[in-house]
C-alpha cells in the first residue's frame, strides 16, 4: 500500500494533447476514481501511472519513490503494481491457476508458497473451483475475476483498474462492483479506478477526480461532487444536470432565445452572463413558472421524464408520472439550481 502523487503531467500523441498539466494526490489505502468522457485522458493517466506510457513532462511518485520524471523512468515491472484491463487480458494459453501464479513465479517464490497464495487469491474472487480451467471456458465475469486475482496475488502497492466493468452486462457489473468494494475493505489496497460511468464512481470511490480534456475539473468525495459541483461540466457529467447558457437579470435567468426562469430565493446572484445548472429532479411541473411546450414524455416507472425544447437543446424534468400530451403547454419552475458566472 502506498500513496501516489502525480505532478503536472503532460502527454501528447502527435499533435493531440491528451493530458495537459494534471496533478493529483492519492492517499494510502484510498480508492480514487478518474471519471470522465472518452478521450478525456483518464486511461492515458492510468497507463502513465503503470509505466506503460511515459509522460512528456511531470513527475509521478509511488510511495514516495519517483517512478517517472526528468531522467527517471522506472519500467512497469519494477513498480510493484497490479492492473486490471478493460479487455481482461487473461492469457488464453495458460490455465486460471497459471495466470494467477505468473506474478509470483516472476518473483521466484517457492512452489509451495505460490500454490498457497494462488489458492488464497482465487478464494478472494470466489473462483476456487476453476483453478485448472482454460480461459476460453470462462464467462466474461469470471475472466475479469481471474484478472483481479492476478493483479492482487503479489500484494501490489497500488491496484490500477482500467474500466474493469465496462465489458460486462448490467447484472454482472453490479455483482463485481460489490466484490471490488469487499476486496478493498479486506485488503486495504490503494486503488485507482478509471471509469466513464458516474454511477460506478459514486458507489465505489473515496474521492472522484473528474477529468475533462486532459485536466482535472474537480477532486472531491462523491457527496461533495454531487451536491456542490465546481464547474458546469462536473454538474452535467456527474449529476446529469441540465446546463443552460444565458444571463441573470432581475432575479431571473434569461436564455438568449428569451425564455425566462425566475430563480428560487436561495439562488441569489448578481446580474450578468451565467451558466445555469439544474438537475432534472430539481425542476417542478405545476401551475406556476415558465410555460413551455412539451416535446416528449418518457415513462421511467417510478417517475417520468418530460422534455422541453429550450434554445435548441432539451430541458429535462423528472417528476411524478402524469397525463400529458405532446406540445401541451406545461409550467416549469426551478426549485434548486446553481449558477456559474462567466467572466
Amino acid at each position: 500500500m502506498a500513496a501516489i502523487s502525480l505532478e503536472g503531467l503532460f502527454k501528447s500523441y502527435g499533435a493531440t494533447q491528451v493530458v495537459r498539466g494534471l496533478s493529483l494526490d492519492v492517499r494510502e489505502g484510498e480508492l480514487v476514481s478518474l471519471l470522465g468522457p472518452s478521450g478525456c485522458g483518464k486511461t492515458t493517466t492510468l497507463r502513465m501511472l503503470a509505466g506503460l506510457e511515459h509522460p512528456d513532462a511531470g513527475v509521478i511518485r509511488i510511495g514516495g519513490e519517483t517512478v517517472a520524471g526528468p531522467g527517471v523512468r522506472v519500467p512497469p515491472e519494477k513498480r510493484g503494481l497490479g492492473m486490471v484491463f478493460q479487455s481482461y487480458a487473461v492469457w488464453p494459453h495458460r490455465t486460471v491457476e497459471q495466470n494467477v501464479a505468473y506474478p509470483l513465479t516472476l518473483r521466484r517464490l517457492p512452489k509451495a508458497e505460490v500454490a498457497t497464495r494462488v489458492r488464497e487469491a482465487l478464494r478472494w474472487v470466489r473462483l476456487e473451483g476453476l483453478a485448472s480451467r482454460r480461459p476460453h471456458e470462462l464467462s466474461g465475469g469470471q475472466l475479469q475475476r481471474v484478472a483481479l486475482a492476478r493483479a492482487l496475488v503479489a500484494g501490489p502497492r497500488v491496484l490500477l483498474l482500467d474500466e474493469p466493468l465496462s465489458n460486462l452486462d448490467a447484472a454482472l457489473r453490479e455483482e463485481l462492483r460489490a466484490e471490488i468494494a469487499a476486496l478493498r475493505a479486506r485488503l486495504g489496497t490503494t486503488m485507482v479506478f478509471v471509469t466513464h460511468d458516474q454511477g460506478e464512481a459514486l458507489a465505489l470511490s473515496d474521492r472522484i477526480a473528474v477529468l475533462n480534456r486532459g485536466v482535472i475539473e474537480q477532486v472531491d468525495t462523491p457527496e461533495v461532487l454531487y451536491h456542490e459541483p465546481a464547474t458546469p461540466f462536473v454538474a452535467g457529467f456527474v449529476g446529469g444536470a441540465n446546463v443552460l447558457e444565458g444571463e441573470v437579470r432581475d432575479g431571473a435567468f434569461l436564455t438568449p432565445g428569451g425564455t425566462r426562469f425566475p430563480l428560487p430565493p436561495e439562488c441569489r446572484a448578481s446580474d450578468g452572463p451565467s451558466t445555469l445548472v439544474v438537475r432534472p429532479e430539481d425542476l417542478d411541473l405545476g401551475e406556476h413558472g415558465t410555460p413551455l411546450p412539451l416535446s416528449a414524455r418518457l415513462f421511467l416507472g417510478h417517475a417520468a421524464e418530460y422534455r422541453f425544447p429550450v434554445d435548441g437543446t432539451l430541458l429535462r424534468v423528472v417528476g411524478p408520472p402524469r397525463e400529458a400530451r405532446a406540445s401541451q403547454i406545461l409550467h416549469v419552475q426551478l426549485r434548486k439550481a446553481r449558477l456559474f458566472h462567466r467572466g
Partner: protein
Amino acid sequence: MSAPATPLRWVGLAAWLAPLVVFAVGPVVFLLARGLGAAGALEGLAAETGALVNTLAISTGAAALALVLGAPLALLLFRTDLPLRGAYAVLFTLPSAIPAFIWGMGWLSLASPRAGYLNRLLGEGTLDIHGPVGIAFVEGVSGLPLVLLAGGAAMRRVDPALEEAARVCGASPARALLTTTLPLALPSLSSGAVMVFLMAASSFGVPYLLGVSASPPTRVLTTRIYELVLRADEGLGRASALALGLLLLTPVALLATWALGRSGRVRLSAGKGLASRPFALGRGRAVAGAAVALGCAVLVLLPLGALVLTSLQRGFGARLAWGELTLAHWSGVLWAPRTLRATGLSLLLATGAGALVCALGLGAALLQRAFRRLGAGVEALAVWPYAVPGTVLALALLVAFSRDWRFILLERVAFVLALAHTPWLLLVAYAGKYLALGTRNGAEALAQLDPSLAEAARVSGAGPTRAFRDATLPLLRPALLAAFVLTFLACATEITMSVLLVPAGSEVLGKLLFDLQSYADPAAAAVLACAFVALVAVGQGVLALLGRRAAEAR
C-alpha cells in the same frame, strides 16, 4: 503498443534488413541494372516478342478460365445449400496446394495426343494438351482456388442485410444473390483472377512440360530464360533482359489487385458478418450438385487418378489391363539412392527455409509494429520477393553470386561469401521467396493480439523480453507454425528455382521430378509425383489440425 526503446528498434531493423538486401533486393536490382544495361537489351527483347505474346496470352487465358469457373463455383459453394459443399470446398483447394507441374503431368497422361488415356477412349488425337491452350487450361485450373478463396472470403463479409434488403424490395432469392452478393464479391473474385494471371506468367514447369517439347514448341518468357541460362555466359545478358520484361508484369498486376481491392472494400461490412442463410437451390439442387461433382471429378480427381495409373503401368502407352499393373516403379524409385539423397537435401533445405521464414517473418511483424510509418515499407519489402517470378529470383541469385564476394577488412580477407554451386543458394532462394508467408501470418496474428496481454505481463513484473516470451510468443506460435508448414511444403516441392539453382552433383526433389519427367521416365516421375501429393496431403492435414486447435483455444 509499447514500442521497444529507440536504439533497440534501429538495431533490429538493421539486423532484419541486412540479409534481405544482400540476398533478395540487391541481386534483383543488380539483375535489372544488367538487363537494362546489356548491349542490345531492347533488340534482345524484341527478338523474343513471340515468348512475350505467348506469356500474355496464356496468362490472360488462365485468369479468364479461373474467373469463369471460380465465380459460379464460389457462389454455389459459399452461398447455397449445395450438397457436400464442405467437401468440395476442401477438394477444390487441391489444385493450388499441389504444384502445377504435377497437374501438368496428370493432364499429359490423360491427353497427350497418342498415348493419353482420354485419347485412347475417345480416339487417337482427339485431345492435345500440348500448346498454349493446354498450358492456359492447366494453369487456370491450378489457379482456381485463388479465385475461390478470394470470392468466398468476400461473400462471407458481405452484409446479409444487403441481400435481405433486395428481398424486401421484391427480388427473388436467386435474383438477390445475382444482383447484390455477386457484384459485391466481383472485385475480390477479379483480384483473385489477377493473382492467377501473375502465377501463370511466372510459372515455369507447366509451360516447359507442355510447351517446349511440343511441335511446334510454345515458348514463354520463363522457359526462354531457362534455355538462355543453360547456354551460360552469352545467354545471361539476354536472359536478364527477358527477366526485366517478366518483372514488369508484377507491379502492373499488383496495382490492378490493389485498385480492385480498394473499390471492393468500401462496400463490404467490416463487422464479423452474421452468416446469411444459404440460398436454397430447390429443384436445381440435384442438377447443380451433379455439375459440381462432374467438375470436381474431371478437374481434380481425374488427373490425380491418371498419375496413379501411370505410376503402376509397366510403360506409358502399354496396354491397359490388370495383369499389366506393377509396383516395380514404386520400389524402384522410392528406394533409389538418388531419391533418398534428394529427399534428404530437400527436407533439410525446406526445414531451414521454414525456420528462416518464421524468424524473419516474426521480425518483420514486430518491426511493423515498432515503426508505424516505416512498417508498411518493411512489409512491402518482405512480401515483394513472393511476387517476383521464381525464374527471375533464381536468375538474379545465379548472376549475383556467380563469383565469390570477399568482404575485406583491414587489408585482410575477413569473410568470403562463396555461394555459387552450393545448396546454400537454394536455401537463400527458398527463404527469400516464401518470406511473405511468415510475414503475413506473423503480422496478422500480432495484429489480432490485444496489446494489453503483454502489458499485463509487464505490470505483473516481467521485463520486456520476458513479457514477449511469456505472453506474446506463445500466442503467435500457431500462426508461425502454420507459416513453417506452408513454407516447408512449398520448398520441398519447389521446381522452378530448383532446376536453375541446384548445384551439379547434388539433387533436390523438385529437380529430380523435373528431370525424370523431362528426360527419362514418365512412370518413375509419376511415382514421385504421387509421393509429392501424399506429402502435400499430410501437410495440409497438419495445417487443418493446427487451425482447429487454434480455433478451440480462442
